[in-house]
């Protein structure tokens, strides 16, 4: 398991051999088996911990340009580009990123471009169908007696604009 440590529908605790996660330990729901190696460290991004694993086994980031460039994406995005005010970033995120940037010969300015490109991609809904748009940021609300469930889609544009753009008939 990466980026979580509580089993989901596709995983089972007795068949999990390793967990690498950056979330706070969920004592109530976690059932980590004694045969499983648990690596929990509350940093900004799980990719930081994966990169740390690479560095531990290989002793450096040499000859790993494709991998470290790949891992850097979520480190930059999830730490909100290392924003101190957002308070997601931790010392290990900064340390790992700096070592990756040194290995790749990147400058600090390159971070903002990567961050902006990823934020833009995250909100780019131009390729999504109407149904996909409805699903993308959908939240389910269940009544306290569990008898009613309501799905509330989070539209990225005003509904009036969406209807107009798509020529949808109003019933």
């Amino acid at each position, binding site marked *: *398991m990466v*980026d979580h440590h509580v089993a989901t529908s596709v*995983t089972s605790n007795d068949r999990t051999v390793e967990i690498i996660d950056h979330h706070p330990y969920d004592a109530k729901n976690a059932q980590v088996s004694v045969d499983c190696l648990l690596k929990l460290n509350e940093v900004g991004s*799980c990719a930081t911990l994966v990169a740390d694993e690479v560095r531990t086994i290989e002793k450096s980031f040499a000859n790993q340009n494709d991998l470290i460039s790949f891992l850097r994406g979520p480190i930059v*995005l999830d730490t909100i580009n290392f924003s101190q005010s957002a308070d997601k970033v931790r010392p290990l995120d900064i340390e790992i990123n700096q070592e990756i940037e040194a290995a790749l010969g990147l400058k600090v300015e390159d971070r903002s471009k990567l961050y902006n490109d*990823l934020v833009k*991609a995250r909100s780019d809904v131009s390729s999504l169908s109407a149904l996909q748009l409805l*699903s993308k940021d959908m939240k389910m609300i269940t009544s306290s007696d569990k008898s009613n469930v309501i799905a509330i889609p989070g539209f990225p544009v005003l509904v009036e604009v969406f209807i107009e753009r798509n020529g949808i008939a109003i019933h």
Partner: protein
Amino acid sequence: MSRIGLFVKEAKRWLKLTEPVIFVVGNESCDLDSAVSAVGLAYFYMNATNVPDRLLIDGTRRFVPMMNIHRTNLPLKTEVTYFMRDHGIDIDDLICW
């Protein structure tokens, strides 16, 4: 296609064999961190100088990254699809459920 992309494509083929594999799976939000950590760790372990014995299956390495969402929801993760393509990975090669 990149080396990581070729690995992801190869890993998808292994599922058709009856060989046991170790899945590397992220959480159910399948955000960029989960997707990249799963692919990145699986790719790394396949190429690492050495991996711990407990990660070997009969002395062999077989790591398969998996996106912990239904395939139909993968296109909704627009930063994931963008980033994967940008790193030479074919979205259709990513394993979902």
